[in-house]
């Protein structure tokens, strides 16, 4: 599942929100935010 906070931050990519990628704790993982993440 894409946990709620990650889903919301991914959706905020539409807006001028500069912390979105960092707040999902996936700094520099270019492929990470497109897909659902792990189960832990």
């Amino acid at each position, binding site marked *: 599942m894409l946990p709620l906070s*990650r889903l919301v931050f991914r959706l*905020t990519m539409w807006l001028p*929100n500069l912390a979105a990628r960092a707040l999902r704790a*996936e700094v*520099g993982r270019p*492929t990470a935010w497109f897909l659902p993440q792990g189960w*832990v």
Partner: protein
Amino acid sequence: MNQHASASSPITPTNTIEPNPLALSYQPRRLRGAVLSVAWNLAWLALFLRAGLADPQSPWLHPAIAQPPGWPLYIIVFYFLYAIINFPIDLWYGYLHERQFGLVKQGLRAWGRDWAIGAAQHGLMFVIGSCLIILLQIHTPHAWLFYAAAAILALFLTSTFFAFDLIPAGLFQFEPADQPLVARLQRLIHPLATPLPRIVIFSHAELRDFSGGLAGLGPRQTLLISRPTIELASNALLRFVLLHEMGHRRFHHLLLGSLLGWAFVTTGLIVGDLFISRFAPGSLASPMYIPRLAMVITCSMIASHPLLAYLGHRLEYQADRFYLRHGGTPEEMKLALEELSRRNLARTDLTRRRQSIVQAMPTPARRLHAAEKYFTQFAEPPGH
């Protein structure tokens, strides 16, 4: 350990999972990367505003960039600067640091290509959303907030509906699950008879995680599962994650998530407008509004992070309970969580709520504790 801390700790001998030393070293660095990245962005943004680069009279700016038809260029350049400023941190934490833990198998060039694809898609969304806001401010100055909220709701629902189709080409290899695999997975979730959604396996050179989940809404909903999960995970783990995902599907968590996200973002827009119309009223209906809104929305997303994480945790617990009601047991769940944590380098030693609140997922120890409590209280004991 003080008295309060020990009172809030749910640790019992049955739900303790052995800590993984590698995860203890890896996870704090990821958290540090996230904090540093947010601070880095806010510092640069403050400098940008202080230097007058969001001021139409600034000598640094060409007059054409602040007016129609040139103003979208301002937003594009602003995003470009953001991407460049973030590159060193992305490289350090996303490539060099991950390589240290053996999580990156590809070379720097391949990582750079993926980085460019990710940054370009983010940039496209950023520019479309920002231009939409400015256009609404120009054409409906009195009701733009209302129309912006409606447009963002439509954007969020559409992009959640088509989430699987919106994954950029060239990053992953996708393969639909074949019939024998679907039949095997469907047998694993017995006695639940609900058919599984469309299943797609994804792979990538650096992918070793057991990861996956639902993407898309309604008829477009797809269950994505990483290739390593299908090839290497035990039946207990697969059963746990499949029934957990079926729980999210049953309770429409993706739709709920996008509606909640919209509520948070709309609140951020309203708060942003209150601030900006008070401190920089002249920037309304101009691209100079965007850096200021970026500052306010970023701060409001940071402030709302604990609440979002809390609500997200409720959804995860609900999905875990769905698993327990459909044949799962805390013992099997413990095996699955141990296997998942070992593979994904997740920390298993965080047991208190305040440690859990920065995590997107509730920690394994807390989930196991909640599962044991639920199972003894409400579920029938196994064998009945």
